[in-house]
């Protein structure tokens, strides 16, 4: 294993002496930024779409909105994330003459993409809440939207929290493709260290460990959140 310890030494040297850690911190920051902002945008978009999809459809406007939402979900679920990144960065931005950084594009695409997935998760969550909850809200004179926001969606979120957690974990892992549009994430950082030392074994091993630690921490956080949200179910 003398060989391996040499590799470790080389990694440590570049990591510390040649400021490799700065790149890693930067990469970690971007990875988390893209995943967290993507999730937040995704939850907002997903909740809106899910709400539109459960509105009773007697009238024309809900029907049109519903058609648009189906199209949106189909579009984003029907293409790989990498393709969406490339299309936005290399096709849409030049066409519209807009300038955005790789990270900005990544946040946007991750938000739009997870919005499509979360809308389906949220819809199943909303459908899992007893219809009587909506009726009770409407019966006291609250509007559909208010009842949805104050009563139904909080209960739906509680029901789908584990699934939402999975979506977040999936997002974090998928950020490893954002280097396609020039965003410097964890992969880019460790790739830099590897290229500078011509030695990839240790950097990629450390990268894998960092991903695992992030996911474990998030899983634990979700468990704690779930427990506190479940307090309304407790009997004593």
């Amino acid at each position, binding site marked *: 294993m003398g060989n391996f310890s040499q590799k470790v030494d080389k990694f440590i040297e570049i990591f510390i002496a040649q400021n490799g850690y700065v790149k890693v911190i930067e990469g970690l920051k971007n990875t988390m930024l893209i995943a967290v902002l993507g999730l937040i945008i995704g939850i907002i978009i997903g909740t809106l779409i899910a709400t539109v999809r459960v509105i009773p459809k007697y009238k024309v406007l809900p029907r049109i909105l519903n058609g648009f939402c189906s199209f949106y979900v189909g579009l984003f679920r029907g293409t790989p994330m990498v393709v969406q990144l490339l299309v936005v960065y290399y096709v849409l931005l030049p066409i519209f003459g807009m300038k955005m950084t790789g990270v900005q594009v990544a946040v946007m695409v991750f938000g739009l993409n997870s919005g499509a997935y979360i809308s389906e998760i949220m819809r199943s969550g909303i459908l899992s809440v007893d219809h*009587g909850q909506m*009726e009770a809200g*409407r*019966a*006291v*004179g*609250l509007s559909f939207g*208010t009842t949805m926001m*104050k009563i139904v969606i909080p209960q739906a979120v509680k029901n789908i929290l584990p699934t939402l957690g999975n979506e977040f974990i999936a997002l974090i892992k998928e950020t490893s493709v954002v280097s396609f549009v020039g965003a410097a994430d964890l992969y880019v950082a460790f790739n830099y260290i590897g290229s500078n030392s011509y030695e990839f074994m240790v950097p990629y091993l450390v990268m894998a460990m960092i991903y695992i630690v992030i996911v474990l921490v998030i899983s634990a956080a979700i468990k704690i959140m779930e427990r506190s949200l479940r307090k309304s179910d407790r*009997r004593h």
Partner: protein
Amino acid sequence: MIDVINLKKKFGDNEILRGIDITIEKGDIVVVIGPSGSGKSTFLRCLNCMEDPTSGQIIFKGTDIADMKVDINEHRRHMGMVFQHFNLFNNKTVIENIMLAPVILQTKDLKKGRIKGTTKKQIKEEARENALKLLKRIGLEDKADVYPSTLSGGQKQRVAIVRALAMNPDVILFDEPTSALDPEMVGEVLDLMKELAKEGMTMVIVTHEMGFAKEVANKVIFIDEGKILESGTPKEFFGNPQNERLKEFLSKVLV
């Protein structure tokens, strides 16, 4: 207070209500009975447009609320509803259940300038005070901060009734309020309803509690196959029923 004129309701091709006419005056206690599937619950749910009537009119304080152009939320504030399965908001504590609608709706009124001389904070405090008073009335003030899942069925239904009361409604609609309760809890709910009746609350009640109908109602109606087949005071209704189907129904339920 409520005039129902030729109310019809279809679900697809299935005609549930085939033309209901009834007038409900202020202070009336109307009990609706009928076999299951007769349309009595649908009738009640049409009164506050929980189900949109297919045709006909429901004139509530001078406005036809069956008209789809009417802002139904505005009118529902004045019509409380109590459900068979209580439908307390599971994500809210008992006191929040009672305060929620008054606070939200009055705050909205304040923003729109429909009420003046108060603040959001005051509205909340008043709603809280009122909710505590209501909870005290039903002897559940110690349950104010627990979630509904910890209450018994009877307690849930009494909270649901005071939740409706918190809006100061002109009328309360009861959709089989005791049908989902264990027998020993029926009494406490009916007692509360009797109290409301004594205080002059207008009530429309779909129920299978014939004893309650006899004692409290001033008008009993029998619905079957989507029509009112008989209506009258409890004395006439139970003492001297005319309609054949009502006689048959009563012979089955009054044993």
